């Protein structure tokens, strides 16, 4: 019985936990319940992913209503991987959040913080698992609204403005998505993804469908911060509470990009959506993102902002992989979503640990961090992964993407990918140098809160994951290849 409901439990658990957490009297209890939920979810996510390995899919009909009338949930390798990413990051970030967030947010608000956090996770998992496109919109808004609230809790007052800006631009993106859904509905009369997929070819209103397609995707690309639509991201990542930056950087843009992949390949289908021009557009946008993001990252003087721009660049890699439209490229893109997720989360956590004392992430204020040599290890691992150094996860994704670029004879793309790595060295070096080789003047005596054990544990876990999945790719790359084959309809 339970097994049948495992999929939906992933979404329902945090939704139920959220109000309970808000009501619990002490911050430790709230956190305890949150981490308990997260652990359960992680267990469930691993289980369902194991269930769908090898190409089967789980269908779940909400309330017993069969699609296209009822809402159905569908789980295959693709969203199984994403669900695992969200649950994993959620778990690790919660581990980290305890000590980190208590230094940033007054104690009476902590219950609400964890409750909101659960809502973000509910929304993200809902997006990942749902098979209904309007339901997806609702979850998108659930996660976005709770995200705005979390961002607004940042320690500096700029966080409020960042949250407000994100609210405006995020709603803009979601609205475009909604317009797109409406137009598609007008053309096909259905909201269920699979049903939609079967209707696409037969629609008698192709113009409406194309407009819907265009609106839907631009809205999603905005949520995913893909190159020309990335402008909202740096402020958000810079001013959020530390744990929230880590959570968002690893999940929210990734999940949005997942929706792009799902809609593009599964719903609209390769022939419909990826006429050559559109695929080339993705390649171009991705390449520009890689170059632009890396160059801007080099210019930054704030560690978290630098990481934010690097995120824009790294998302570009996934977009490039998507635009290549081959199994190699797509699996590279998908595995990069996962790989970059854990890498960036680790780096934001490191930044948060440095910021505990000074309360800012300005690089000049963080200089001379030699008193924490372990953090250097974290920054090195994460930084090397951003560069794409072999032995880290970053290498795996870039290797796949580079291979895919050569397969297609896109030499310029290979140059862009490698150039991106070289630029990454510069910005990675920039923060490592400032943090560890520039003596601070005057030397700041490191008082203030010391990173808690949970923070170290979380960082350690992610670092291990970066190296482990960099050396043993059977699991991550295997699932990504499965998903890519399914999406492109290629059978091994």
């Amino acid at each position, binding site marked *: 019985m339970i097994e049948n409901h495992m999929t939906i439990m992933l979404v329902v658990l945090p939704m139920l936990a959220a109000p309970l957490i808000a009501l619990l009297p002490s911050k430790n209890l709230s956190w305890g319940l949150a981490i308990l939920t997260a652990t359960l979810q992680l267990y469930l996510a691993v289980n369902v992913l194991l269930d769908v390995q090898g190409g089967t899919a789980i269908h779940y009909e909400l309330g017993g209503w069969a699609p296209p009338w009822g809402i159905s949930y569908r789980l295959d390798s693709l969203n199984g991987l994403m669900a695992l990413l969200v649950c994993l990051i959620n778990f690790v970030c919660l581990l980290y959040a305890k000590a980190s967030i208590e230094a940033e947010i007054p104690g009476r608000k902590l219950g609400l913080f964890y409750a909101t956090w659960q809502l973000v996770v509910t929304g993200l998992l809902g997006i990942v698992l749902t098979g209904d496109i309007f339901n997806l919109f609702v979850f998108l808004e659930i996660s976005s609204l709770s995200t705005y609230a979390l961002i607004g809790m940042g320690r500096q007052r*700029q966080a409020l*403005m*960042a949250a*407000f*800006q994100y609210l*405006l*631009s995020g709603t*803009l*993106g979601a609205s*475009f998505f909604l317009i797109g859904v409406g137009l598609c509905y007008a053309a096909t009369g259905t909201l269920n993804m699979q049903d939609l997929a079967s209707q696409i070819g037969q629609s008698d209103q*192709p*113009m409406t469908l*194309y*407009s819907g*397609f*265009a*609106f839907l*995707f*631009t*809205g999603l*690309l*905005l949520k995913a911060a893909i190159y*020309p*639509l990335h*402008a*909202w991201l740096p*402020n958000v990542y810079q001013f959020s509470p530390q744990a929230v930056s880590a959570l968002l950087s690893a999940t929210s843009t990734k999940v949005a990009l997942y929706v792009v992949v799902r809609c593009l390949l599964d719903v609209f289908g390769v022939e419909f959506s990826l*006429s*050559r*021009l*559109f695929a080339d*557009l993705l390649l171009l946008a991705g390449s520009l993102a890689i170059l632009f993001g890396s160059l801007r990252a080099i210019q930054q003087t704030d560690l978290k902002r630098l990481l934010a721009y690097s995120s824009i660049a790294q998302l570009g890699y996934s977009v490039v992989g998507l635009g290549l439209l081959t199994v190699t490229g797509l699996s590279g893109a998908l595995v990069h979503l996962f790989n970059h997720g854990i890498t960036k989360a680790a780096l934001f956590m490191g930044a948060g640990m440095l910021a505990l004392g000074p309360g800012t992430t300005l690089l000049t204020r963080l200089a001379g961090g030699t008193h924490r*040599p372990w953090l250097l*290890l974290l920054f090195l691992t994460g930084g*090397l992964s951003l*560069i794409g*150094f*072999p*032995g880290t996860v970053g290498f*795996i994704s870039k*290797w*796949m993407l*580079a*291979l895919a670029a*050569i*397969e297609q004879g896109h030499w310029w793309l*290979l140059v862009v990918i*490698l150039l991106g*790595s*070289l630029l990454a*060295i*510069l910005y990675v*070096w920039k923060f490592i*140098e400032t943090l560890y*080789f520039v003596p601070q003047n005057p030397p700041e005596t490191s008082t203030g809160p010391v990173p808690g054990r949970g923070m170290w544990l979380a960082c350690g876990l992610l670092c291990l994951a970066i190296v482990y999945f960099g*050396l*043993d*790719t*059977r699991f991550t*790359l295997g699932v990504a290849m499965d998903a890519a084959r399914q999406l492109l309809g290629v059978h091994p």
Partner: protein
Amino acid sequence: MMAEYPPFLNFYLAALFYLLLSPLFGPRLRFLLPLVPLLSLGQLIILSPDASWSWQLASLSMEWLRVDKLSLLFGYLFHLAAFIGFVYALHVKDTLQQVSALLYAGSALGAVFSGDLLSLFLFWEMMAVSSSGLVFARQTQTARGAGIRYLIVQVLSGVLLLSGALVQFQQTGTLRFDAMQADGIAGGLILFAFGIKCAFPLLHNWLVDAYPESTASGTLFLSAFTTKVAVYALARGFAGTELLVYIGAIMTCFPIFYAVIENDLRRVLAYSLINQLGFMVCGVGLGTALALNGAVAHAFADVIFKGLLFMSMGAVLHRVGHTLGSDLGGLHKTMPKSTLLCIIGAGSISAFPLFSGFVTKSMIMSAMIEAGHDWLWLALLFASAGVFHHAGIKIPFFAFFAHDRGLRPKEAPVHMLFAMSMSAFLCLLIGMFPQLLYRLLPWQMNYWPYDLTHTLTQLQLLFFSALAFVWLNKQGIYPPELRSVNLDSDWLYRKYLPNMARWLWSVREFTQPGIARVQSVILRPFSHQSGLTAFDTSQLLLKLLLGLAILIGIGLLSSDLFN
């Protein structure tokens, strides 16, 4: 059976333990470091010759242990170098340096035992990163600058290697690292990558830029591994590539001119390192058994005698604080042992009979004649005379003799002297009993260096080079040591490109007001204030809307309706 794992693991694990244990035991731990290469050498010796060890990575099999005579020779050499290096570095209490050195030595070993291009790339990049730690460890502004330039060039080499590997994989479906063709994209890229690490002409600048900026012991490690791994890779991948003979000949000749006018004695040694590499590259390019043996044997000898020279200059750096020829002199009075050891190193690099350089370099020279490259042989002969001139005489002369500047530093510390003595002993041992080294060489050959002709001609060449030095000095023609920098190919990226960038920037500055005016006209209805700060919501939304409009436009255009 237990011992059948790649030796680099010994060093990586040691690095990990050092990092873990150093907070507990403090710098005392460093006294254990020389044991690492010793124990690892033991493992290498009992390693069975057909051992192999591979790792599955994403449908690729990475071969981390391929044992043959060529890789074994370099394996022994690197263990030896690491041992000497850690003894020499016993005074260093800097965790960064120790860990970098361990990782660096381990990576070099990993590279020579790699059976495929991907593993080679892995260790290639590990070498780049770990070795740059040794440059940064000097903790000066110039070292940081040199370090980042070094790192970029090294990683660039790795990136080229990766591209080559990718192309080869795409074309042939295999990543195995064996003899390759230099024509074709894959081979070309890989050769270029090797060439950077091997300091080919015009690609050599990272070496003379960064090596002299490292710490006393750091330079020793640096000089031992990176370039020798490159020689190994060339010997394995591109033996017999004619192009390399010419490149090698140029490499032997051009650095000696720079070495004569260079002031920093460690930089002189860096130039002479390139010169020695030139001989090895020539040997690889010739590709005969004798030449290849000569190349790897010379690499072996070079690690030891160049190390010895760098160690003696390191001792000077350690005691005096700099190695500028213009400000040194007369050190033999208080550092007699270092002086003597330095002279042994100088004798070896100059290839005096009975010193190690002679028994290895003469193989390459003989192979050159056998191959009929008469003119290139003359160039190499010229370079040999030049080596003696700048490394054999100039280094000991300007540091330990020349004008007495009144410096009275203490003799080098005991552990340094011990490390240097070991190297000196090895130089003489190889020089006097070359068969010890010859027996280890990978290819079959029949060669004996000490015949009358070789010995006599070499002595004549060297003595009359020395005579020229004496004569030039007496005539006052010899260029004095001056505090200066000499332009080299790094001018391109250290001066020309920054200037270009500055120029472009000024163009931008010039046009900026115009652009801003246009912007403000377009955006006037929306702007309440000029200046783009982080919190201009209007700007943000405008940007987003513009992006949305463009994407929607293209999305619609791309539809079938318009096609």
